[in-house]
């Protein structure tokens, strides 16, 4: 075990993956000698050479197109998009190409080796284009996996799981926690499973569900709720697609209440998918409407970021309203 922040854990995961398999390559904008604008790929070029860790020209559709080709050839590309806000130029390559590569070829070809890493989320005064949470755009795309870790231990284990998963994976890293979140991380090679939610805390009165940086916010809200004797079951979804409905269903069958929270805007956000599914599967057990605590249906604002974000107080209020319904 070593004390690491999330960036160190991600860097350690990439190092581990590259050491274990020479087919693993890391590339993107400023990823090479400089080690990335957040330093996630620090020292990898020095250790594994310029052919395996390198800068690309500044072109997101090119980075992912290139990565698709490399993955089809049998390499294991880990491509970095500098901010999730800038993944949209590559949307066509991801949605029309990566996601459909295996299906459309009848499994003659696939890009299963592909992993795309991108820092996401707000809380860092990033304004419109350094704050977005685009997971719901991709959740509407069969063929992709979408994963979001909440702390350094999760980040390393899930990233290694993503790199070795035989399907293309989008790995969104909560950049607000890059240095803020620290914890014990095994130095050994370990993987955490994709497609499985994790019950972080058991409770009886209400289920509170989120992912990524929002888990820390949920913890603070739950502390407030527990002071008022509300027993909360806290679940980290971890994988957005394909998501672990069963764990959430089982929890809501027990608690009868659900709050889902994410930073992204409400309309079309992934909480909508979760709410619809739980409503369908737990209808007779629900004691109150499913609450969604999310960002507003606006572009991500700069000055009024605090007002925009679904913070612990908004979640706490939603928990209370749900209990009192």
């Amino acid at each position, binding site marked *: 075990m070593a004390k690491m922040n999330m960036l160190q854990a991600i860097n350690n995961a990439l190092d581990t993956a590259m050491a274990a398999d020479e087919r693993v390559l890391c590339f993107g904008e400023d990823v090479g000698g400089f080690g990335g604008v957040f330093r996630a790929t620090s020292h990898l070029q020095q250790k594994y050479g310029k*052919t395996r860790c*390198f800068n*690309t*020209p500044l*072109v997101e*559709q*090119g980075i*992912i*197109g*290139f*990565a*698709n*080709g*490399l*993955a*089809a*050839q*049998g*390499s294991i*590309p880990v491509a970095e998009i500098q901010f999730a806000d800038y993944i949209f*130029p590559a949307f*066509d*390559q991801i949605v*029309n*190409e990566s996601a*459909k*590569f*295996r*299906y*459309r*070829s*009848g*499994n*003659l*070809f*696939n890009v*299963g080796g592909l992993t795309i890493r991108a820092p996401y989320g707000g809380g860092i005064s990033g304004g419109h284009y350094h704050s977005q949470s685009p997971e719901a755009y991709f959740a509407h795309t*069969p*063929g992709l*996996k979408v994963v979001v870790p909440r702390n350094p231990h999760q980040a390393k284990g899930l990233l290694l799981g993503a790199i070795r998963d*035989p*399907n293309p994976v989008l790995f969104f890293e909560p950049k607000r926690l890059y240095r803020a979140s620290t914890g014990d991380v095994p130095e050994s090679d370990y993987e955490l499973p994709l*497609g499985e939610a994790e019950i972080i805390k058991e409770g009886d009165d209400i289920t509170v569900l989120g992912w990524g940086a929002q888990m820390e916010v949920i913890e603070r809200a739950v502390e407030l709720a527990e002071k008022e004797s509300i027993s909360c079951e806290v679940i980290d979804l971890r994988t957005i697609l*394909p998501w672990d*409905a*069963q764990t959430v269903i089982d929890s809501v069958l027990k608690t009868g209440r659900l709050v889902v929270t994410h930073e992204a805007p409400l309309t079309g956000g992934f909480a909508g998918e979760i709410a619809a599914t739980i409503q369908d599967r737990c209808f007779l057990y629900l004691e109150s409407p499913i609450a969604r605590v999310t960002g507003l249906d606006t572009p991500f604002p700069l000055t009024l970021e605090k007002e925009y974000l679904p913070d612990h107080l908004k979640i706490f209020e939603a928990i209370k309203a749900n209990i009192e319904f």
Partner: protein
Amino acid sequence: MTTTRSEVVYTPTFTDGDEFRLPTFKLLQQDGTLYDGAETPDLDRDKALRIYRAMVFTRVLDERMLAAQRQGRLSFYMQCTGEEAAVIGSTAALDDADMIMAQYREQGALAYRGFTTDEFMNQLFGNEQDYGKGRQMPIHYGSAKLHYMTISSPLATQIPQATGYAYGQKLAGKGHCTITYFGEGAASEGDFHAALNMAAVHKVPVIFFCRNNGYAISTPAIEQFAADGVAPRAFGYKMQVIRVDGNDILAVHEATKAARRMAVEDNCPVLIEAMTYRLAAHSSSDDPSGYRSKKEEEAWREKDPILRMQRWLLDRQWWNEDDEKALQESLRREVLETMKRAEKRPPPALETLVSDVYDEVTPALAEQFEHLKMHIRKYPEAYPKSAGQAKGGA
């Protein structure tokens, strides 16, 4: 690094690059003889005949299958007509294990590599023997064993993929390269720019082969770009480039052979622009009479690349009228008979609807599939292709 090799001037000096005129490489005249000064290319009889058969096969297949589409037997079709030399001449200059990442009008490349008539037909009819399991539209072929990447409809997406694929080949060190085909219309997509720039920066063994056939559906090349074709763009990327007569099988073959040598031996990407003409409609859903003249088409029909090669073969006495007649007849018969067999094959199994989305069927998708089967069992007459398969327990 911002102004390397730049001279200094003291008056504002602009250029549109027009002084860099690219020549067109030609060897074979339409009458089947070489141009004065053209050297006889290094192409032996066996290979020349392999190329020629693939060209004739492609023409016969295209004519028959367009007719089949008109009869309603096929949902869609796209012909290679007029561009057989560009496609097959370049593929023939490669190693058969080099990767091909094509757009959609390159069935000739597959024909050259030995894709069987059955394999073509199974894809066109989307039957149970189609490698793609009937999931994609006709002409979206793929073959792992022939190193032909499955076609997808979004234009130009395969171009940066070819750069990535070839980068992997370079690391693997087995001396292979990738060729990627695209039309002059697709070259307007952002993916074209991304691919060429990345290939040049990273010194990737990839050949970018542009079929400049004058039209992107109804849009003439003059409305596609203001420059002298696609080739001059290579200068901006510091990439080797050649323009070739795309209806000249010998020139295309020679140019691609040299390009491959540069790609594999020097890790040097190359752009080839083959000037040709799309003799057929864009697709079975298009009618070119709405945007171009019969006279223009006729002028290009006289430059038919297959006829040109046939005359060269006749001139060399590698081929004669009887050979031609026998080949035409046997191909027509084979295409027709194979089509009839392929049409009768059953559709893909119902379960192929949900397999291969991921490496394994997810629980949520398995559940959706069980619901679908129950539904089909309830209304079997509405789903004739799968009613028989939906029987049995959930």
